[in-house]
Protein backbone atom coordinates (compact mmCIF):
# COMPACT_ATOMS: atom_id res chain seq x y z
CA UNK A 1 0.00 0.00 0.00
CA UNK A 2 2.84 2.37 0.74
CA UNK A 3 3.87 2.39 -2.86
CA UNK A 4 0.58 4.01 -3.84
CA UNK A 5 1.47 7.49 -2.58
CA UNK A 6 4.60 7.99 -4.69
CA UNK A 7 2.65 6.36 -7.53
CA UNK A 8 0.01 9.07 -7.48
CA UNK A 9 2.74 11.65 -7.75
CA UNK A 10 4.22 9.97 -10.77
CA UNK A 11 3.46 11.71 -14.06
CA UNK A 12 3.48 8.60 -16.21
CA UNK A 13 1.17 6.73 -13.91
CA UNK A 14 -1.28 9.62 -13.69
CA UNK A 15 -1.38 10.04 -17.45
CA UNK A 16 -1.82 6.35 -18.19
CA UNK A 17 -4.34 5.82 -15.40
CA UNK A 18 -6.41 8.78 -16.58
CA UNK A 19 -6.34 7.59 -20.17
CA UNK A 20 -7.26 4.06 -19.17
CA UNK A 21 -10.07 5.29 -16.92
CA UNK A 22 -11.50 7.43 -19.74
CA UNK A 23 -11.35 4.47 -22.05
CA UNK A 24 -13.06 2.30 -19.47
CA UNK A 25 -15.91 4.74 -18.95
CA UNK A 26 -16.61 5.36 -22.62
CA UNK A 27 -16.34 1.75 -23.73
CA UNK A 28 -18.37 0.62 -20.72
CA UNK A 29 -21.25 2.97 -21.51
CA UNK A 30 -21.42 2.31 -25.23
CA UNK A 31 -20.55 -1.34 -24.90
CA UNK A 32 -23.63 -1.86 -22.71
CA UNK A 33 -25.84 -1.02 -25.67
CA UNK A 34 -23.86 -3.28 -27.95
CA UNK A 35 -24.26 -6.15 -25.48
CA UNK A 36 -28.00 -5.55 -25.05
CA UNK A 37 -28.50 -5.43 -28.80
CA UNK A 38 -26.71 -8.75 -29.14
CA UNK A 39 -23.96 -7.10 -31.15
CA UNK A 40 -21.15 -7.87 -28.75
CA UNK A 41 -18.66 -8.70 -31.45
CA UNK A 42 -19.14 -5.33 -33.12
CA UNK A 43 -16.15 -4.09 -31.14
CA UNK A 44 -13.93 -6.83 -32.47
CA UNK A 45 -15.07 -6.28 -36.02
CA UNK A 46 -14.68 -2.51 -36.01
CA UNK A 47 -11.28 -2.46 -34.34
CA UNK A 48 -9.89 -4.91 -36.88
CA UNK A 49 -11.53 -2.94 -39.68
CA UNK A 50 -9.63 0.17 -38.57
CA UNK A 51 -6.29 -1.20 -39.80
CA UNK A 52 -6.51 -0.25 -43.51
CA UNK A 53 -7.51 3.27 -42.49
CA UNK A 54 -4.44 3.67 -40.31
CA UNK A 55 -2.06 2.41 -42.99
CA UNK A 56 -3.69 4.47 -45.73
CA UNK A 57 -3.50 7.61 -43.60
CA UNK A 58 0.21 7.01 -43.17
CA UNK A 59 0.77 6.25 -46.85
CA UNK A 60 -1.07 9.39 -47.93
CA UNK A 61 0.46 11.84 -45.46
CA UNK A 62 3.79 10.25 -44.62
CA UNK A 63 3.19 11.17 -40.99
CA UNK A 64 2.88 8.99 -37.92
CA UNK A 65 1.13 11.77 -36.05
CA UNK A 66 -1.43 10.24 -33.71
CA UNK A 67 -4.32 12.45 -34.76
CA UNK A 68 -3.85 11.64 -38.43
CA UNK A 69 -3.61 7.90 -37.89
CA UNK A 70 -6.68 7.96 -35.66
CA UNK A 71 -8.58 9.91 -38.28
CA UNK A 72 -7.74 7.22 -40.81
CA UNK A 73 -8.87 4.57 -38.35
CA UNK A 74 -12.12 6.44 -37.77
CA UNK A 75 -12.98 6.69 -41.46
CA UNK A 76 -12.16 3.04 -42.00
CA UNK A 77 -14.19 1.99 -38.95
CA UNK A 78 -17.20 4.07 -39.96
CA UNK A 79 -17.08 2.67 -43.48
CA UNK A 80 -17.03 -0.86 -42.11
CA UNK A 81 -19.94 -0.18 -39.75
CA UNK A 82 -21.98 1.35 -42.54
CA UNK A 83 -21.21 -1.60 -44.80
CA UNK A 84 -22.28 -4.11 -42.15
CA UNK A 85 -25.55 -2.33 -41.51
CA UNK A 86 -26.30 -2.00 -45.21
CA UNK A 87 -25.60 -5.67 -45.90
CA UNK A 88 -27.98 -6.70 -43.12
CA UNK A 89 -30.67 -4.31 -44.28
CA UNK A 90 -30.68 -5.25 -47.93
CA UNK A 91 -30.12 -8.97 -47.79
CA UNK A 92 -30.94 -12.08 -45.81
CA UNK A 93 -27.43 -12.20 -44.37
CA UNK A 94 -27.52 -12.10 -40.58
CA UNK A 95 -25.54 -9.67 -38.47
CA UNK A 96 -22.69 -11.99 -37.39
CA UNK A 97 -22.08 -13.18 -40.94
CA UNK A 98 -22.00 -9.62 -42.23
CA UNK A 99 -19.63 -8.69 -39.43
CA UNK A 100 -17.28 -11.58 -40.12
CA UNK A 101 -17.27 -10.85 -43.83
CA UNK A 102 -16.56 -7.15 -43.54
CA UNK A 103 -14.04 -7.56 -40.75
CA UNK A 104 -11.93 -10.17 -42.49
CA UNK A 105 -11.86 -8.31 -45.79
CA UNK A 106 -10.93 -5.01 -44.16
CA UNK A 107 -8.30 -6.53 -41.90
CA UNK A 108 -6.87 -8.57 -44.75
CA UNK A 109 -6.70 -5.45 -46.88
CA UNK A 110 -5.00 -3.66 -44.02
CA UNK A 111 -2.37 -6.38 -43.60
CA UNK A 112 -1.72 -6.37 -47.34
CA UNK A 113 -1.28 -2.59 -47.29
CA UNK A 114 1.03 -2.91 -44.29
CA UNK A 115 3.23 -5.45 -46.05
CA UNK A 116 3.27 -3.25 -49.13
CA UNK A 117 4.12 -0.19 -47.02
CA UNK A 118 7.16 -2.01 -45.72
CA UNK A 119 8.60 -1.72 -49.19
CA UNK A 120 8.21 2.02 -49.65
CA UNK A 121 11.55 3.80 -49.51
CA UNK A 122 10.87 6.07 -46.57
CA UNK A 123 13.28 5.85 -43.69
CA UNK A 124 10.72 6.83 -41.14
CA UNK A 125 7.73 4.60 -41.38
CA UNK A 126 8.09 1.69 -39.02
CA UNK A 127 5.87 1.29 -35.99
CA UNK A 128 2.43 1.23 -37.62
CA UNK A 129 1.80 -2.21 -36.26
CA UNK A 130 2.76 -0.97 -32.82
CA UNK A 131 0.00 1.60 -33.18
CA UNK A 132 -2.57 -1.07 -33.83
CA UNK A 133 -1.58 -3.18 -30.88
CA UNK A 134 -1.57 -0.26 -28.50
CA UNK A 135 1.06 1.16 -26.22
CA UNK A 136 -0.69 2.57 -23.19
CA UNK A 137 2.44 3.55 -21.31
CA UNK A 138 3.35 6.12 -23.94
CA UNK A 139 0.14 8.14 -23.82
CA UNK A 140 0.85 11.84 -24.00
CA UNK A 141 -1.07 14.64 -22.34
CA UNK A 142 -2.57 15.76 -25.60
CA UNK A 143 -3.86 12.23 -26.17
CA UNK A 144 -5.65 12.45 -22.84
CA UNK A 145 -7.15 15.81 -23.76
CA UNK A 146 -8.43 14.41 -27.05
CA UNK A 147 -9.85 11.31 -25.35
CA UNK A 148 -11.57 13.45 -22.72
CA UNK A 149 -13.07 15.81 -25.30
CA UNK A 150 -14.37 13.03 -27.55
CA UNK A 151 -15.56 11.03 -24.56
CA UNK A 152 -17.49 13.99 -23.22
CA UNK A 153 -19.27 14.46 -26.54
CA UNK A 154 -20.13 10.75 -26.72
CA UNK A 155 -21.52 10.65 -23.18
CA UNK A 156 -23.49 13.83 -23.78
CA UNK A 157 -25.11 12.31 -26.84
CA UNK A 158 -25.97 9.15 -24.92
CA UNK A 159 -27.55 11.23 -22.16
CA UNK A 160 -29.55 13.31 -24.64
CA UNK A 161 -30.76 10.32 -26.59
CA UNK A 162 -31.21 8.06 -23.59
CA UNK A 163 -34.82 7.12 -24.10
CA UNK A 164 -34.33 6.79 -27.86
CA UNK A 165 -31.48 4.32 -27.41
CA UNK A 166 -33.43 2.53 -24.69
CA UNK A 167 -36.51 1.90 -26.77
CA UNK A 168 -34.41 1.14 -29.84
CA UNK A 169 -32.41 -1.49 -27.98
CA UNK A 170 -35.48 -3.11 -26.43
CA UNK A 171 -38.03 -3.08 -29.26
CA UNK A 172 -36.92 -1.49 -32.54
CA UNK A 173 -40.16 -2.42 -34.34
CA UNK A 174 -42.27 -0.63 -31.77
CA UNK A 175 -39.92 2.35 -31.86
CA UNK A 176 -40.33 2.53 -35.62
CA UNK A 177 -44.10 2.24 -35.33
CA UNK A 178 -44.42 5.28 -33.09
CA UNK A 179 -42.37 7.43 -35.41
CA UNK A 180 -38.67 7.07 -34.50
CA UNK A 181 -36.42 6.55 -37.51
CA UNK A 182 -34.72 3.34 -36.49
CA UNK A 183 -32.36 3.34 -39.44
CA UNK A 184 -30.94 6.67 -38.30
CA UNK A 185 -30.78 5.51 -34.68
CA UNK A 186 -29.00 2.33 -35.72
CA UNK A 187 -26.43 4.27 -37.71
CA UNK A 188 -25.96 6.82 -34.94
CA UNK A 189 -25.48 4.26 -32.20
CA UNK A 190 -23.09 2.26 -34.34
CA UNK A 191 -21.09 5.39 -35.16
CA UNK A 192 -20.83 6.30 -31.48
CA UNK A 193 -19.50 2.81 -30.80
CA UNK A 194 -16.96 3.24 -33.61
CA UNK A 195 -15.72 6.51 -32.10
CA UNK A 196 -15.44 4.87 -28.68
CA UNK A 197 -13.36 2.09 -30.20
CA UNK A 198 -11.07 4.51 -31.99
CA UNK A 199 -10.49 6.41 -28.76
CA UNK A 200 -9.44 3.21 -27.08
CA UNK A 201 -7.20 1.93 -29.85
CA UNK A 202 -4.08 3.58 -28.52
CA UNK A 203 -4.50 2.19 -25.05
CA UNK A 204 -5.29 -1.47 -25.52
CA UNK A 205 -5.01 -1.91 -29.27
CA UNK A 206 -7.10 -3.65 -31.88
CA UNK A 207 -7.23 -7.18 -30.58
CA UNK A 208 -8.12 -6.35 -26.98
CA UNK A 209 -10.55 -3.52 -27.64
CA UNK A 210 -13.48 -5.87 -28.07
CA UNK A 211 -12.95 -7.10 -24.52
CA UNK A 212 -13.20 -3.53 -23.21
CA UNK A 213 -16.46 -3.11 -25.05
CA UNK A 214 -18.15 -6.31 -23.92
CA UNK A 215 -16.83 -7.27 -20.51
CA UNK A 216 -17.93 -4.21 -18.47
CA UNK A 217 -21.48 -4.47 -19.84
CA UNK A 218 -21.70 -8.20 -19.20
CA UNK A 219 -20.40 -7.73 -15.66
CA UNK A 220 -22.73 -4.82 -14.93
CA UNK A 221 -25.82 -6.71 -16.15
CA UNK A 222 -25.27 -9.26 -13.42
CA UNK A 223 -25.66 -6.68 -10.67
CA UNK A 224 -28.47 -4.49 -11.93
CA UNK A 225 -31.94 -4.70 -13.35
CA UNK A 226 -32.32 -1.17 -14.57
CA UNK A 227 -30.75 0.19 -17.69
CA UNK A 228 -29.33 3.34 -16.12
CA UNK A 229 -27.78 1.34 -13.29
CA UNK A 230 -26.30 -1.17 -15.70
CA UNK A 231 -24.71 1.59 -17.79
CA UNK A 232 -23.36 3.38 -14.71
CA UNK A 233 -21.89 0.20 -13.26
CA UNK A 234 -20.43 -0.64 -16.64
CA UNK A 235 -18.63 2.71 -16.66
CA UNK A 236 -17.40 2.14 -13.11
CA UNK A 237 -16.10 -1.34 -13.88
CA UNK A 238 -14.39 -0.06 -17.00
CA UNK A 239 -12.72 2.80 -15.17
CA UNK A 240 -11.74 0.55 -12.28
CA UNK A 241 -10.02 -1.98 -14.52
CA UNK A 242 -8.25 0.85 -16.34
CA UNK A 243 -6.83 2.29 -13.14
CA UNK A 244 -5.99 -1.12 -11.69
CA UNK A 245 -4.20 -2.01 -14.90
CA UNK A 246 -2.14 1.15 -14.64
CA UNK A 247 -1.33 0.43 -10.99
CA UNK A 248 -0.16 -3.13 -11.65
CA UNK A 249 1.81 -2.08 -14.71
CA UNK A 250 3.50 0.65 -12.67
CA UNK A 251 4.36 -1.60 -9.79
CA UNK A 252 5.87 -4.44 -11.80
CA UNK A 253 8.45 -3.69 -14.49
CA UNK A 254 8.03 -5.09 -17.99
CA UNK A 255 4.29 -5.52 -17.50
CA UNK A 256 2.52 -4.22 -20.62
CA UNK A 257 -0.33 -1.97 -19.55
CA UNK A 258 -2.97 -2.77 -22.18
CA UNK A 259 -3.14 -6.54 -21.61
CA UNK A 260 -3.15 -6.07 -17.83
CA UNK A 261 -6.19 -3.78 -18.09
CA UNK A 262 -8.01 -6.42 -20.07
CA UNK A 263 -7.09 -9.11 -17.54
CA UNK A 264 -8.55 -6.92 -14.79
CA UNK A 265 -11.87 -6.41 -16.52
CA UNK A 266 -12.03 -10.13 -17.34
CA UNK A 267 -11.57 -10.95 -13.67
CA UNK A 268 -14.35 -8.52 -12.76
CA UNK A 269 -16.61 -10.10 -15.36
CA UNK A 270 -15.84 -13.62 -14.18
CA UNK A 271 -16.54 -12.72 -10.55
CA UNK A 272 -19.81 -11.10 -11.62
CA UNK A 273 -20.89 -14.12 -13.60
CA UNK A 274 -20.17 -16.42 -10.69
CA UNK A 275 -21.10 -14.49 -7.59
CA UNK A 276 -23.76 -11.95 -8.40
CA UNK A 277 -26.90 -12.45 -6.30
CA UNK A 278 -29.84 -13.51 -8.42
CA UNK A 279 -28.16 -14.02 -11.74
CA UNK A 280 -24.87 -15.48 -10.61
CA UNK A 281 -24.16 -19.10 -11.37
CA UNK A 282 -23.23 -20.02 -7.82
CA UNK A 283 -26.33 -18.35 -6.47
CA UNK A 284 -28.49 -20.30 -8.89
CA UNK A 285 -26.88 -23.56 -7.79
CA UNK A 286 -27.41 -22.61 -4.16
CA UNK A 287 -31.09 -21.89 -4.78
CA UNK A 288 -31.54 -25.20 -6.57
CA UNK A 289 -29.98 -27.14 -3.74
CA UNK A 290 -32.04 -25.26 -1.18
CA UNK A 291 -35.25 -25.91 -3.10
CA UNK A 292 -34.38 -29.56 -3.41
CA UNK A 293 -33.77 -29.96 0.30
CA UNK A 294 -37.01 -28.14 1.12
CA UNK A 295 -38.95 -30.46 -1.15
CA UNK A 296 -37.39 -33.47 0.50
CA UNK A 297 -38.44 -32.21 3.91
CA UNK A 298 -42.01 -31.57 2.80
CA UNK A 299 -42.15 -34.94 1.09
CA UNK A 300 -41.29 -36.61 4.33
CA UNK A 301 -43.97 -34.66 6.23
CA UNK A 302 -46.69 -35.59 3.77
CA UNK A 303 -45.82 -39.26 3.67
Amino acid at each position, binding site marked *: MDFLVPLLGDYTFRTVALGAALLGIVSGVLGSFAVLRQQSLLGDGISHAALPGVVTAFLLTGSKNTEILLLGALISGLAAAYLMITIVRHSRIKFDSALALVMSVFFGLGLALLTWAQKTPNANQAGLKRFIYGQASTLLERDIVMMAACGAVLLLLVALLWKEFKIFS*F*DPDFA*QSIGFDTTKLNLLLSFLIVVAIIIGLQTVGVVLMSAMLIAPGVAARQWSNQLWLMVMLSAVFGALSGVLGAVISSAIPSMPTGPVIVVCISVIATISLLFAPGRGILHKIYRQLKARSLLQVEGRDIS
Partner: protein
Amino acid sequence: MNCEDYAVEVCDLTVAYDVKPVLWDIHLAIPKGKLVAIVGPNGAGKTTLIKAMLGLVKPVSGAIFFGCNTPKMIDKKKIGYVPQSGSVDWDFPATVLDVVMMGRYGHLGWFKRPGHKDRDMAMEMLHKVGMHQYAARQISQLSGGQQQRVFLARALVQQADLYFMDEPFKGVDAQTEKSIVWLMSELKNQGKTMVVVHHDLRTVPDYFDWVTLINTRIVANGPVGEVFHEKNLCKAYGGQGLLLKGAAV
Protein backbone atom coordinates in the same frame (compact mmCIF):
# COMPACT_ATOMS: atom_id res chain seq x y z
CA MET B 1 -68.29 5.73 -48.34
CA ASN B 2 -65.33 7.94 -48.98
CA CYS B 3 -61.78 7.77 -47.75
CA GLU B 4 -62.51 9.55 -44.45
CA ASP B 5 -64.67 6.69 -43.29
CA TYR B 6 -61.89 4.18 -43.57
CA ALA B 7 -59.37 3.61 -40.79
CA VAL B 8 -56.89 2.02 -43.17
CA GLU B 9 -56.83 1.24 -46.87
CA VAL B 10 -54.38 -1.00 -48.66
CA CYS B 11 -53.96 -0.64 -52.41
CA ASP B 12 -52.22 -3.11 -54.66
CA LEU B 13 -49.79 -4.28 -52.01
CA THR B 14 -47.21 -6.90 -52.84
CA VAL B 15 -44.50 -7.98 -50.39
CA ALA B 16 -41.83 -10.53 -51.21
CA TYR B 17 -38.69 -11.93 -49.62
CA ASP B 18 -36.34 -12.79 -52.50
CA VAL B 19 -38.59 -14.17 -55.23
CA LYS B 20 -41.25 -15.73 -53.03
CA PRO B 21 -44.26 -13.45 -52.56
CA VAL B 22 -45.70 -13.34 -49.05
CA LEU B 23 -48.45 -10.90 -49.94
CA TRP B 24 -49.77 -10.60 -53.45
CA ASP B 25 -51.94 -7.83 -54.87
CA ILE B 26 -53.69 -6.94 -51.62
CA HIS B 27 -56.66 -4.60 -51.86
CA LEU B 28 -58.23 -3.94 -48.54
CA ALA B 29 -60.34 -1.30 -46.86
CA ILE B 30 -61.19 -1.34 -43.18
CA PRO B 31 -63.91 1.04 -41.94
CA LYS B 32 -63.39 3.05 -38.78
CA GLY B 33 -64.64 1.78 -35.47
CA LYS B 34 -64.51 -1.90 -36.33
CA LEU B 35 -63.04 -4.81 -34.42
CA VAL B 36 -61.21 -6.61 -37.24
CA ALA B 37 -59.84 -10.15 -37.20
CA ILE B 38 -57.18 -11.08 -39.74
CA VAL B 39 -57.19 -14.83 -40.17
CA GLY B 40 -55.51 -17.32 -42.43
CA PRO B 41 -53.31 -20.40 -42.37
CA ASN B 42 -49.66 -20.35 -41.31
CA GLY B 43 -47.44 -18.46 -43.70
CA ALA B 44 -50.44 -16.62 -45.12
CA GLY B 45 -48.79 -13.27 -44.55
CA LYS B 46 -50.92 -12.03 -41.64
CA THR B 47 -48.06 -10.59 -39.58
CA THR B 48 -46.44 -9.28 -42.74
CA LEU B 49 -49.67 -7.48 -43.61
CA ILE B 50 -49.87 -5.51 -40.40
CA LYS B 51 -46.14 -4.86 -40.48
CA ALA B 52 -46.52 -3.46 -43.98
CA MET B 53 -49.37 -1.26 -42.76
CA LEU B 54 -47.14 -0.04 -39.94
CA GLY B 55 -44.29 0.65 -42.32
CA LEU B 56 -42.02 -1.99 -40.76
CA VAL B 57 -41.50 -3.96 -43.96
CA LYS B 58 -40.92 -2.48 -47.36
CA PRO B 59 -43.30 -3.65 -50.05
CA VAL B 60 -42.39 -4.38 -53.62
CA SER B 61 -45.33 -2.32 -54.70
CA GLY B 62 -48.49 -0.80 -53.34
CA ALA B 63 -49.61 1.97 -51.03
CA ILE B 64 -51.18 2.33 -47.60
CA PHE B 65 -53.63 5.04 -46.67
CA PHE B 66 -54.90 6.05 -43.25
CA GLY B 67 -58.19 7.82 -43.78
CA CYS B 68 -57.29 10.06 -46.68
CA ASN B 69 -53.67 10.46 -45.61
CA THR B 70 -50.45 8.80 -46.67
CA PRO B 71 -48.27 7.34 -43.89
CA LYS B 72 -45.95 10.36 -44.04
CA MET B 73 -48.83 12.74 -43.36
CA ILE B 74 -50.27 11.10 -40.26
CA ASP B 75 -49.19 11.24 -36.67
CA LYS B 76 -47.39 7.94 -36.11
CA LYS B 77 -47.86 8.08 -32.38
CA LYS B 78 -51.59 7.76 -32.95
CA ILE B 79 -51.18 4.21 -34.18
CA GLY B 80 -50.93 1.64 -31.45
CA TYR B 81 -48.96 -1.56 -31.95
CA VAL B 82 -49.07 -4.67 -29.81
CA PRO B 83 -46.49 -7.08 -31.24
CA GLN B 84 -46.13 -10.76 -30.45
CA SER B 85 -44.50 -11.18 -27.06
CA GLY B 86 -41.85 -13.41 -28.64
CA SER B 87 -40.53 -10.57 -30.76
CA VAL B 88 -38.52 -9.11 -27.90
CA ASP B 89 -35.76 -10.30 -25.56
CA TRP B 90 -37.41 -10.14 -22.13
CA ASP B 91 -34.07 -10.32 -20.38
CA PHE B 92 -33.67 -6.60 -20.93
CA PRO B 93 -32.98 -4.64 -17.72
CA ALA B 94 -36.33 -2.88 -17.32
CA THR B 95 -39.40 -2.94 -15.12
CA VAL B 96 -42.99 -3.29 -16.23
CA LEU B 97 -43.51 0.43 -15.72
CA ASP B 98 -40.44 1.21 -17.85
CA VAL B 99 -41.88 -0.70 -20.77
CA VAL B 100 -45.33 0.84 -20.51
CA MET B 101 -43.83 4.33 -20.37
CA MET B 102 -42.16 3.61 -23.71
CA GLY B 103 -45.59 4.03 -25.19
CA ARG B 104 -45.39 7.71 -24.28
CA TYR B 105 -42.08 8.26 -26.06
CA GLY B 106 -43.82 9.06 -29.31
CA HIS B 107 -45.68 11.91 -27.63
CA LEU B 108 -42.48 13.24 -26.06
CA GLY B 109 -40.55 13.37 -29.30
CA TRP B 110 -36.78 13.63 -29.46
CA PHE B 111 -34.68 14.44 -26.38
CA LYS B 112 -37.45 15.12 -23.87
CA ARG B 113 -37.74 13.01 -20.72
CA PRO B 114 -40.96 11.44 -19.48
CA GLY B 115 -42.58 13.33 -16.58
CA HIS B 116 -45.24 12.84 -13.90
CA LYS B 117 -48.11 13.02 -16.34
CA ASP B 118 -46.66 10.20 -18.38
CA ARG B 119 -46.03 8.14 -15.30
CA ASP B 120 -49.57 8.58 -14.03
CA MET B 121 -50.98 7.63 -17.39
CA ALA B 122 -48.81 4.53 -17.46
CA MET B 123 -50.03 3.47 -14.01
CA GLU B 124 -53.62 4.06 -15.08
CA MET B 125 -53.23 1.76 -18.06
CA LEU B 126 -51.53 -0.84 -15.90
CA HIS B 127 -54.62 -0.73 -13.73
CA LYS B 128 -56.78 -1.29 -16.78
CA VAL B 129 -54.91 -4.44 -17.73
CA GLY B 130 -54.76 -5.60 -14.14
CA MET B 131 -50.98 -5.36 -13.79
CA HIS B 132 -50.59 -2.35 -11.49
CA GLN B 133 -49.16 -4.38 -8.61
CA TYR B 134 -46.40 -5.57 -10.93
CA ALA B 135 -45.26 -2.07 -11.87
CA ALA B 136 -41.84 -2.48 -10.30
CA ARG B 137 -41.42 -6.10 -11.38
CA GLN B 138 -38.57 -7.15 -13.66
CA ILE B 139 -39.93 -8.02 -17.10
CA SER B 140 -37.85 -11.19 -17.16
CA GLN B 141 -40.03 -12.53 -14.35
CA LEU B 142 -43.33 -12.25 -16.18
CA SER B 143 -45.45 -15.07 -17.54
CA GLY B 144 -46.57 -15.11 -21.18
CA GLY B 145 -49.98 -13.69 -20.37
CA GLN B 146 -48.46 -10.94 -18.25
CA GLN B 147 -46.06 -10.01 -21.03
CA GLN B 148 -48.99 -9.68 -23.39
CA ARG B 149 -50.81 -7.41 -20.96
CA VAL B 150 -47.76 -5.19 -20.57
CA PHE B 151 -47.60 -4.75 -24.32
CA LEU B 152 -51.28 -3.94 -24.35
CA ALA B 153 -50.86 -1.29 -21.66
CA ARG B 154 -47.97 0.16 -23.64
CA ALA B 155 -50.21 0.57 -26.67
CA LEU B 156 -53.08 1.98 -24.61
CA VAL B 157 -50.86 4.67 -23.18
CA GLN B 158 -50.41 6.01 -26.68
CA GLN B 159 -54.11 7.01 -26.72
CA ALA B 160 -54.25 5.95 -30.31
CA ASP B 161 -57.23 5.83 -32.64
CA LEU B 162 -56.07 2.77 -34.54
CA TYR B 163 -54.55 -0.33 -32.95
CA PHE B 164 -52.69 -3.20 -34.59
CA MET B 165 -52.32 -6.37 -32.55
CA ASP B 166 -50.40 -9.51 -33.48
CA GLU B 167 -51.95 -12.65 -32.00
CA PRO B 168 -52.70 -11.11 -28.57
CA PHE B 169 -54.53 -14.24 -27.43
CA LYS B 170 -51.80 -16.70 -28.24
CA GLY B 171 -50.57 -18.61 -25.21
CA VAL B 172 -52.50 -16.58 -22.62
CA ASP B 173 -54.58 -17.91 -19.77
CA ALA B 174 -58.37 -17.62 -19.67
CA GLN B 175 -58.27 -14.68 -17.26
CA THR B 176 -56.01 -12.66 -19.51
CA GLU B 177 -58.12 -13.54 -22.52
CA LYS B 178 -61.23 -12.21 -20.85
CA SER B 179 -59.45 -8.98 -19.86
CA ILE B 180 -58.24 -8.42 -23.39
CA VAL B 181 -61.66 -8.98 -24.89
CA TRP B 182 -63.22 -6.58 -22.38
CA LEU B 183 -60.60 -3.94 -23.16
CA MET B 184 -61.13 -4.34 -26.88
CA SER B 185 -64.86 -3.81 -26.61
CA GLU B 186 -64.30 -0.77 -24.42
CA LEU B 187 -62.00 0.70 -27.02
CA LYS B 188 -64.57 -0.01 -29.71
CA ASN B 189 -67.15 1.87 -27.68
CA GLN B 190 -64.80 4.84 -27.72
CA GLY B 191 -64.81 4.69 -31.50
CA LYS B 192 -61.35 3.17 -31.91
CA THR B 193 -60.48 0.73 -34.66
CA MET B 194 -58.65 -2.50 -33.90
CA VAL B 195 -56.95 -4.71 -36.46
CA VAL B 196 -56.01 -8.01 -34.84
CA VAL B 197 -54.13 -10.98 -36.25
CA HIS B 198 -56.04 -13.86 -34.73
CA HIS B 199 -55.25 -17.56 -34.67
CA ASP B 200 -58.40 -19.13 -33.19
CA LEU B 201 -61.20 -19.43 -35.76
CA ARG B 202 -63.73 -20.55 -33.18
CA THR B 203 -63.76 -17.24 -31.36
CA VAL B 204 -63.90 -14.98 -34.41
CA PRO B 205 -67.69 -14.49 -34.42
CA ASP B 206 -67.71 -13.88 -30.67
CA TYR B 207 -64.97 -11.29 -30.42
CA PHE B 208 -64.96 -9.50 -33.76
CA ASP B 209 -67.41 -7.75 -36.06
CA TRP B 210 -65.24 -7.60 -39.21
CA VAL B 211 -62.98 -10.22 -40.69
CA THR B 212 -60.25 -10.34 -43.34
CA LEU B 213 -59.51 -13.79 -44.71
CA ILE B 214 -56.09 -13.99 -46.26
CA ASN B 215 -53.82 -16.54 -47.84
CA THR B 216 -51.14 -14.55 -49.62
CA ARG B 217 -54.06 -12.99 -51.47
CA ILE B 218 -57.22 -11.56 -49.98
CA VAL B 219 -59.86 -14.27 -49.89
CA ALA B 220 -62.55 -12.15 -48.35
CA ASN B 221 -62.95 -8.93 -46.38
CA GLY B 222 -66.15 -7.77 -44.73
CA PRO B 223 -68.54 -7.98 -41.75
CA VAL B 224 -68.34 -11.29 -39.91
CA GLY B 225 -71.92 -12.22 -40.61
CA GLU B 226 -71.54 -11.77 -44.37
CA VAL B 227 -68.09 -13.11 -44.96
CA PHE B 228 -67.23 -15.66 -42.30
CA HIS B 229 -68.72 -18.83 -43.78
CA GLU B 230 -67.58 -22.23 -44.98
CA LYS B 231 -67.07 -21.34 -48.62
CA ASN B 232 -64.63 -18.58 -47.82
CA LEU B 233 -62.95 -20.62 -45.11
CA CYS B 234 -62.44 -23.41 -47.58
CA LYS B 235 -60.89 -21.01 -50.03
CA ALA B 236 -58.53 -19.69 -47.38
CA TYR B 237 -57.59 -22.87 -45.57
CA GLY B 238 -58.06 -25.54 -48.16
CA GLY B 239 -59.86 -28.58 -46.77
CA GLN B 240 -59.08 -27.81 -43.15
CA GLY B 241 -61.48 -24.90 -42.90
CA LEU B 242 -64.37 -26.99 -41.66
CA LEU B 243 -62.32 -28.73 -38.98
CA LEU B 244 -60.93 -25.48 -37.72
CA LYS B 245 -64.23 -23.74 -37.52
CA GLY B 246 -65.38 -26.43 -35.14
CA ALA B 247 -68.76 -26.10 -33.55
CA ALA B 248 -69.66 -22.69 -35.01
CA VAL B 249 -71.87 -23.02 -38.08
